């Protein structure tokens, strides 16, 4: 029996954590006792999206650690304890707090630190770097009393930091040493275009500025003095001039480090000590360091493979990047600076739309060597594939960057990609892997993402992934049939548009004009019933609509397994008066209904026969209640915590807002049910982040979350917008919901709708916040129409004698359904089981 070996990972950053995840998912996980040291007080979090901390994300949101990850996998983590020494001779790691552990294998994932240039005054008060959550917290604190902020460094991270300062409402400057922004990735033309765009967003860009010292300011806390004699006054200085590998533990333990720093590794990521590996930003491979996570993840996979005694080689990494800076698209691929001998350059510059594109191609014009895209990075996926897979360029390479004036597509079809082509660089998913997942039954974008993890990192490859999916489905003959059913050769979205454009008001009319002339079915009737209700919001039991409603809608109650119904009166925001509660209790008692409190903060009454429904509702309406629409694919509830009115911690009136929102959107018919919640502070007692629409109060206003979901496949809602006033909040919700109602598939929750949306959250934001499609006013009008035409369906029904006839159990008798039997349990009724049915029937016979 072999004894377990001990494997220690020093550093629990993104790469260190990815290594742990890869290791515990591998076959060799049981060979090791795993220990990790993390000097920060928090375990791994997403540093790439650190800026989102300022737009409302919390440390928990950014965490990369899944629940129970360390305990569940038997990993011992030492938080807030830095490993300081490696005794390579005796193979012992010692920490700052004196923990000493023997290892068999050691992985260094110590990362990097932000370099602070040795300028006089660099250590003054309110001079920061941009690296950890603690840095950000300190900045936020300082920003409370500051007016001006300056970022030293105009690289990728520097520009992100500038956005952070702007989010903190500071007058923001970027100070760059070299003549252009993002000098590592962009050529002069691209850099100039980027600078124009960044300045248009209100950030001042100062280039060719060599800061010589920082001294006391006159109007601000500091004055930065530049070599050319100019000055800048600022309250906060943020250094973002680059990173340096953290190699001190290797240095003092005799492990080889590079001439310019970094722990030297070979192709297996081994250091000069064969039992010690180094991965991520602390490592230097062939004199290169890699400041992105993807290469770090690739190194992590290499080490796990090497430990598994599989042959694995780290082959460097493509450093192409695409990102959105303050809404500006920027991308750089390969040899952007055209350093390859003989390289040819194509440039497209559009001053009016502020777009800059540059291609660097080989001397024979056959291969793409590099590219720069500013202002429009939509071609990134295609260009990256040309470059990574050495695909032959079209005859006129410039067609790839020139705007297409006709419908001809110049994109690279997914069929042109080899199976080895990398589709998702975050999780290293190849086209071959995607195709085999499709073959194995992943036929939707959502299931494909779930299965392969592709497009779940930065999301940049979503469009490419979708095109591979479509193309594969088409090839495999699974005709991508998006028809809603055999009666209509249209998608739900098409049908919605037809109803809108042709002003169609009934199912029969739609069937006549666009259907197959049949009776329809439970799919199209219901879907069209829902579309008509969403768009026109007429009474759903109107003669023309009655036969379209599913089980629950058609009797305005929820059918249970025995054919009886449950009844749910609306309690907006979960508020109910004592008198209301007493009335409900009395009615439930009178009709002997089983009574239960729901997850949506209201009361559900079970066991009503169809003929009792109007009687029960008459009494509920008399007591002041109205329909809760629990039966509809529509807005259900707006859950709330008690909020600032009573709660010691409340920041705003969550109940008040919940009541207002519920009253606004009640009765809105939609492709699937919709749930809201409003929390009065970030403690989030209302669980708003698991709802379709979630709202959380902050000191600065309301934060809006969208497309969350509890249920079978929970999905955390995405943070959509922050610090909104109430009018803007409602405007955004109007637009998001109207757009969902218009464009979702039938029975598609907002979560799946979002997962399937090409372009995802950013796309939705561009439509709802930036009005990219120019439809916002129409979306708002549509919602206002629904709001203005709200009616309590039960009130309308009770008042109409002719409608009540349907609620009789039998058309030709006053008897009731003898098949409905109840027994008592815990002091209330419940439906009899099949056995009890037989037993009761027998005893009656006797």
């Amino acid at each position, binding site marked *: 029996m072999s004894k377990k070996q001990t494997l220690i990972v020093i550093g629990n950053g993104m790469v260190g954590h990815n290594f742990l995840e890869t290791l515990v998912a591998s076959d060799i996980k049981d060979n090791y006792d795993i220990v990790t040291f993390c000097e920060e007080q928090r375990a791994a979090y997403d540093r790439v999206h650190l800026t989102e901390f300022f737009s409302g994300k919390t440390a928990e949101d950014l965490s990369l650690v899944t629940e129970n990850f360390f305990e569940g996998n038997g990993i011992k983590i030492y938080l807030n304890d830095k490993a300081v020494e490696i005794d390579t001779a005796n193979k012992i790691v010692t920490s700052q707090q004196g923990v000493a552990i023997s290892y068999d294998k050691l992985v260094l994932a110590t990362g990097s630190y932000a370099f602070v240039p040795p300028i006089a005054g660099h250590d003054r008060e309110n001079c920061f770097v941009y690296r950890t959550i603690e840095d950000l917290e300190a900045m936020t604190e300082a920003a409370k009393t500051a007016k001006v902020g300056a970022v030293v460094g105009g690289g990728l991270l520097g520009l992100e930091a500038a956005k952070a300062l702007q989010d903190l409402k500071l007058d923001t400057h970027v100070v760059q040493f070299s003549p252009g922004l993002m000098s590592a990735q962009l050529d002069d033309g691209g850099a100039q275009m980027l600078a124009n765009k960044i300045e248009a967003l209100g950030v001042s860009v100062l280039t060719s500025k060599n800061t010589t010292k920082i001294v006391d300011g006159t109007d601000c806390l500091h004055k930065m003095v530049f070599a050319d004699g100019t000055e800048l006054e600022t309250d906060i200085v943020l250094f973002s001039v680059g990173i340096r590998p953290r190699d001190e533990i290797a240095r003092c333990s005799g492990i080889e480090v590079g001439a310019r720093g970094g722990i030297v590794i070979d192709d297996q990521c081994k250091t000069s000590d064969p039992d010690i590996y180094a991965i991520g930003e602390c490592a230097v491979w062939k004199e290169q360091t890699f400041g992105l996570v993807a290469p770090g993840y690739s190194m992590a996979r290499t080490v796990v493979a090497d430990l598994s005694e599989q042959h694995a080689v780290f082959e460097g990494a493509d450093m192409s990047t695409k990102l959105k800076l303050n809404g500006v698209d920027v991308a750089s691929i390969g040899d952007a600076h055209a350093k390859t001998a003989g390289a040819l350059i194509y440039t497209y510059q559009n001053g009016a739309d502020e777009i800059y594109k540059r291609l660097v191609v080989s001397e024979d014009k056959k291969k793409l060597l590099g590219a720069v895209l500013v202002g429009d990075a939509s071609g990134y996926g295609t260009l990256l594939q040309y470059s990574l897979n050495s695909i032959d360029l079209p005859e006129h390479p410039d067609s790839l960057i020139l705007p297409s004036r006709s419908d001809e597509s110049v994109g690279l079809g997914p069929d042109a990609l080899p199976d080895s082509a990398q589709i998702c660089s975050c999780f290293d998913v190849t086209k071959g892997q995607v195709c085999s997942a499709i073959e194995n039954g992943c036929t939707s974008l959502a299931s494909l993402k779930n299965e392969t993890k592709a497009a779940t990192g930065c999301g940049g490859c979503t469009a490419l992934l979708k095109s591979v999916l479509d193309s594969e489905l088409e090839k495999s003959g699974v005709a991508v049939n998006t028809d809603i059913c*055999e*009666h209509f050769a249209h998608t739900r979205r098409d049908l919605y548009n037809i109803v809108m454009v042709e002003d169609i008001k009934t199912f029969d009319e739609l069937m006549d004009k666009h259907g197959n002339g*049949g*009776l*329809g*079915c*439970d799919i*199209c*009737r*219901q879907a069209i019933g829902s579309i008509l209700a969403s768009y026109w919001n007429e009474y759903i039991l109107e*003669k023309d609509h*009655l*036969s*379209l409603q*599913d*089980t629950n809608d*058609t*009797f305005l109650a929820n*059918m249970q*397994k*025995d*054919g009886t119904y449950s009844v749910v009166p609306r309690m907006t925001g979960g508020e109910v008066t004592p008198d209301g509660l007493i009335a409900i209790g009395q009615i439930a008692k009178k009709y002997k209904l089983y009574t239960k409190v729901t997850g949506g903060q209201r009361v559900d009454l079970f066991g009503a026969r*169809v003929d009792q429904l109007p009687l029960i509702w008459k009494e509920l309406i008399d007591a002041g209640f109205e329909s809760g629409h629990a039966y509809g694919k529509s807005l259900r509830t707006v859950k709330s915590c008690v909020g600032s009115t009573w709660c010691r911690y409340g920041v705003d009136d969550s109940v008040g807002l919940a009541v207002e929102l519920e009253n606004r959107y009640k009765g809105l018919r939609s492709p699937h049910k919709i749930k809201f919640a409003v929390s009065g502070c970030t403690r989030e007692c209302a669980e708003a982040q698991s709802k379709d629409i979630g709202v959380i109060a902050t000191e600065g206003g309301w934060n809006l979350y969208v497309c969350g979901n509890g249920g079978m496949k929970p999905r955390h809602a995405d943070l959509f917008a922050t610090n909104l006033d109430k009018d803007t909040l409602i405007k955004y919700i109007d637009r998001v919901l109207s757009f969902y109602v218009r464009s979702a598939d039938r029975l598609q929750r907002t979560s799946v709708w979002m997962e399937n949306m090409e372009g995802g959250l950013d796309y939705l934001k561009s439509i709802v916040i930036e009005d990219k499609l120019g439809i916002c006013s129409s979306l708002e009008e549509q919602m206002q129409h629904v709001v203005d035409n709200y009616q309590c369906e039960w009130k309308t029904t009770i008042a109409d004698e002719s409608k009540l*006839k*349907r609620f009789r*159990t*039998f*058309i*030709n*008798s006053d*008897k009731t*359904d003898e*098949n*409905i039997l109840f027994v008592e349990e815990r002091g209330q009724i419940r439906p009899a089981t*099949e056995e009890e049915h037989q037993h009761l029937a027998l005893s009656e016979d006797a």
Partner: protein
Amino acid sequence: MTKWIDICSIDDLQANSGVCALVEGKQIAIFYTPQNNTVYAIDNYDPFGKAQVLSRGLIGDIKGEPMIASPLYKQHFSLKTGQCFEDETVKNTVYAIRIENDRVEISLEG
């Protein structure tokens, strides 16, 4: 000679939807499609959900065959034969039904 039992007036029916009648102790679901002025009668009992609910299902057709979708678990039954589309071993009873002088009549004879 077939014995026809009077149930109700044609005005008591719901267009493209169902009602339930109690006929000699049996619950029978009746559906009415005014397009072709046709009525259908099928046992109200849902053999999957084991409840008397078929009259409250959604009507439609599958490849032209008129059918009813159960409101409980959505199985489809032919309104002409009672055959379940999802499970060939399950068949519900259908009954003869007709409209005579605006009255709806059912026969319980096979």
